[in-house]
C-alpha cells in the first residue's frame, strides 16, 4: 500500500547502492566482466574517488590505494581480473548484502570470497565494509575496509610489515 510518504534520502541512496552492487548477485562463472559493472559505473560521478584502506606499497598493485576519476575506476576493475578470480558472495541467500545509511552515506556490509590468482589462495572475508558517499544521486566516494592480509602477503611475502618505514 502506498502510504503517501515520500522516500527518505537514506531509502533513495540505499536503492542506488543496491543497484551499484547488483553484479555481486550473479555468480562469477556467469558474470560478464565487460558489462556487469556498468550499473556501478553509471552511478559514479565523473570525479569519483575509490579508496581501499591499507598500507600502501609500490610493489603491491591495485590495492590498497586510491583511484581518482570514473575512467581510472573502470580501468582498475578491468585490471583486477588479472589479480583476483572467483569473486563472489559466500551465500547471497543466507547472507545477502546489508545496507546501513545515514544522510548521504551508505555502509555496505559484504561477506565475500575470492581467489588470489598469483598464489591460488582463496580468501574468505567474513565481513567487509564499503562506505559510499552520494552526491546528487551519484556516488562520489568509495572507501573499502577489509582484510587484505593474504593479498599483500602474496605480493611481498611474510614479514613485510617489519620492513616498511
Amino acid at each position, binding site marked *: 500500500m502506498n502510504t503517501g510518504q515520500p522516500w527518505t534520502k*537514506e531509502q533513495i541512496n540505499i536503492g542506488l547502492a543496491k543497484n551499484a552492487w547488483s553484479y555481486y548477485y550473479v555468480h562469477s562463472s556467469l558474470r560478464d566482466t565487460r558489462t556487469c559493472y556498468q550499473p556501478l559505473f553509471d552511478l559514479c560521478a565523473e570525479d569519483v574517488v575509490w579508496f581501499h*584502506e*591499507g*598500507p600502501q606499497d609500490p610493489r603491491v598493485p591495485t590495492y*590498497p590505494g586510491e583511484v581518482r576519476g570514473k575512467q581510472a575506476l573502470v580501468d582498475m576493475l578491468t585490471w583486477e581480473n588479472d589479480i583476483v578470480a572467483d569473486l563472489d558472495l559466500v551465500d547471497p541467500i543466507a547472507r545477502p548484502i*546489508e545496507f*546501513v*545509511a*545515514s544522510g548521504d*552515506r551508505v*555502509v555496505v*556490509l559484504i561477506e565475500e570470497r575470492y581467489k588470489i590468482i598469483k598464489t591460488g589462495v582463496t580468501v574468505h*572475508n*567474513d*565481513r*567487509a*565494509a564499503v*562506505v559510499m558517499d552520494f552526491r546528487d544521486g551519484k556516488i562520489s566516494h568509495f*572507501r573499502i*575496509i*577489509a*582484510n*587484505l*592480509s*593474504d593479498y*599483500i*602477503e602474496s605480493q611481498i611475502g*611474510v*614479514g*613485510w*610489515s*617489519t620492513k616498511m618505514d
Partner: protein
Amino acid sequence: MDNMSHARRAYSGLEATAGVRAIESSDYSHYFSLLADNVVLKFGIPAGTPIGGGFSGKDAVIHFFTTTAPELFENVQLEGPLEFLGSQDRVVVLGRESYTIRKTGVRARSKAFAIVLDFQDGLIIRDHEIKEMTEFVDGWRIN
C-alpha cells in the same frame, strides 16, 4: 533511549580522551555496561592470530578488552571523533585508530575500522569489528 544513543554512550569514554592520551581499559566502562550476557565479539581477520576466532559471552569480551588487548597492543589512540550510522537494531561506528603491535614493535597508523553493533532490548548482542589489521596479521605469521 534508542540504539543510536546507546552506541554513542558505549564509546563516549573512548571519545572523551581521543587525541589526549592512549585508550585505557576503564574507557570501556559504558561499553561493558551495555553488553548482553550472550554477546559475541568478532574481528573478521584470519584465524591464526590471538583474536581471529572471536569471543563469546560478556565475561570473555570484558576479559579481552581489559587483559588480552593490552597484552597485544600498546599506546592505542583513537583518531578523532567517531561517526555513527544506523537504523533500528543495527548501528555502524566508523573511525580510525593507531596502535603499536607488541609482538613486532610495528606502529600501525590511522587504521580504519567499521564496528557493526547489533542490539536486542537495548543491549549489544553482536559486536563485529571490521578492521584492516594487515600489520597485526603479518606479525603473527612471522615464525
